[in-house]
């Protein structure tokens, strides 16, 4: 599953970035070779097309009629009018269903995010900065669960949630989302490499309680890692498909990812048995765009640390 890949890619990166003094600042400058041998540049450009073309097509598809989608140039702009028509048709589908799904996604992802931050940051702090019985066990358990793909536990979670009669409740996905061992790991790495222990000791000498040390010293310094954990948690929860697909049977509870599946079922080109509620392909494209917009926005804001800031210890771009 791609979310796992994304998540795990990130799992690796902070080890580079949050380690102080890792690597060299100077990067080899070999730009000159670009002119001598055009092949590498060509390969890089081809892959850029591969990665970007589908996204670009998706943006343009939302501005076309179904007829234009088939007959016009795939990379041409349709018209604002067609976009408007698609928008109206999409929002009319099952009476504002798309907004309901987007709202659901926002509610699920943000409540889970809030719980994750409240739970994971203190836990990562304690694992890094304090000693207690069971600390090592907890750390190893965290690492193992973190490396396991999150789809592994979906059916077992269903059995558990079903036993406590929470199927169909939004907590059936919010609580499993809120359990985010990767966030704990990130915070653990951050505190153990970036927070000087002496600072905590000084605060203790000044009479701070243990909670006070965390609240007044560690937490204000944790902003970068809070942002990082928040980013990954939000993206992972927003893009999760399997868990809500299993846990939430009612359409009005779907997050937008599962909603896209419902829309897909109503597109006659993909499902010839689709009934009267048919959805045109450009509307599906528009819905897909709406579904990814929050993540894209978060990506743009996070661009710096995603591409280099996260690896700030290694590069000084």
């Amino acid at each position, binding site marked *: *599953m*791609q979310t*796992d*890949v*994304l998540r795990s*890619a990130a*799992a*690796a*990166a902070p080890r580079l970035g949050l*380690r*102080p*003094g890792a*690597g*060299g600042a100077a990067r080899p400058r*070999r*730009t000159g070779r670009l002119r001598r041998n055009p092949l590498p*540049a060509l*390969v*890089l450009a081809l892959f850029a097309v591969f*990665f*970007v073309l589908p*996204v670009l097509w*998706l943006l343009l598809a939302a501005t076309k009629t179904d007829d234009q989608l088939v007959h016009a140039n795939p990379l041409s702009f349709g018209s604002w009018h067609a976009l408007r028509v698609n928008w109206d048709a999409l929002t009319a589908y099952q009476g504002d269903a798309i907004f309901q799904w987007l709202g659901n996604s926002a509610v699920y992802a943000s409540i889970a995010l809030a719980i994750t931050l*409240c*739970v994971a940051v203190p836990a990562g702090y*304690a694992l890094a900065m*304090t*000693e*207690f019985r069971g600390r*090592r066990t*907890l750390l190893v358990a965290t*690492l*193992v*669960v973190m*490396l*396991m793909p999150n789809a*592994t*536990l979906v*059916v*077992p979670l269903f*059995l*558990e949630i079903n036993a406590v009669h929470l199927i169909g409740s939004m907590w059936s996905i919010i609580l499993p989302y809120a*359990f985010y*061992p990767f966030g704990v790991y990130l915070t653990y*790495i951050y505190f*153990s*490499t970036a927070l000087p222990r002496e600072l905590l000791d000084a605060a203790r000498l000044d009479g701070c309680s*243990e*909670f006070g040390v965390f609240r007044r010293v560690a937490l204000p310094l944790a902003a970068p890692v809070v942002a990082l954990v928040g980013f990954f948690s939000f*993206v992972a929860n927003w893009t*999760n498909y*399997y868990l809500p697909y299993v846990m939430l049977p009612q359409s009005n509870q779907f997050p937008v*990812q599962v909603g896209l*599946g419902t829309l*897909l079922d109503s597109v006659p080109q*993909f499902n010839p048995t689709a009934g009267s509620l048919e959805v045109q392909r450009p509307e599906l494209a528009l819905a897909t765009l709406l*579904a990814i917009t929050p993540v*894209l926005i978060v*990506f743009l804001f996070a661009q710096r640390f995603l*591409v280099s800031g996260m690896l700030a210890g290694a590069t000084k771009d």
Partner: protein
Amino acid sequence: MSSQATHARRSQAPARRALGPARAGHGFVAAYTVLLIAFGIVPTGYAVYFAFTNAGGRFTGLSNFSTALDDFRFGPAVGHVAFYLLCWLVSLVVFVVGLALLLHRMAAGGVSRVLRFLYYVPGALAGAASVMVWLFVLDPTVSPAAFLLRGLGYHTFGQVIAPGHLPILFTLVAFWTGAGGWIVVMYGALNNISPDVLEAARIDGAGAWQTAWRIQIPLLRKWIVYMVILAFAGGTQLFVEPQLLSQASVGVAGRDYSLNQLAYDFAFQNNDVNTAAAISVELLLVGLVVAGVFVARSGFFDAD
């Protein structure tokens, strides 16, 4: 902060930690531990319980496992996932490492940054959105790459999603959404290689190929192993791609394609949660073993 300072502090750490109040530590991890037990350990235990019992709750040994094994869809599903994994892992290693090396060597700072971001952007479409996009891209009537599909001799969506093509198609989708993140990671790892080492190699007369093959790739090995392990574990869980594809092709392609789909169908179509649990336990075991071995053996997480 220099790395020496970090090391010095680390080596003092145990002594200082012992002074730290233990009760506070427990307080900080309490909420997390509750979640870990509730959504990590209990479901695992529950799945194991279901896997070894029948609908009436009586112990049945391995019979659920043999029911799953005897199911006509089980063998093919294992084969599908295995072949998909092969394609996915090979393409990931070859192209991610290759592109990271090229980016590191060729592109000037700004260009490289932009390219890395562009490669990363499809990550925003993880999940159902990527499948939607690729349903369109693979449909010759609307695809922006229609000329390519027609050139390969495919004129309808049905021809493109022929069963034999699916591992390649799922690889494309997974690579499209996932590779960018790994390229960023590999690029970062490449940046961590000391420029002195590369400089020395250059003075010794090593060309681009030799430097990559003899110095950079060996130094990346740890990261490549990490990527392969995680991609392997993730790949065994294939679900959303075949599930949506089977919807889009009215069950012609992708139905009961992967093990997770099979578990889903046992649980929700056949009302046989015990067999579903047996399949889940097998998948869990793969995930646990892979993760456990990696944590124990790789030295990746020896920060502690």
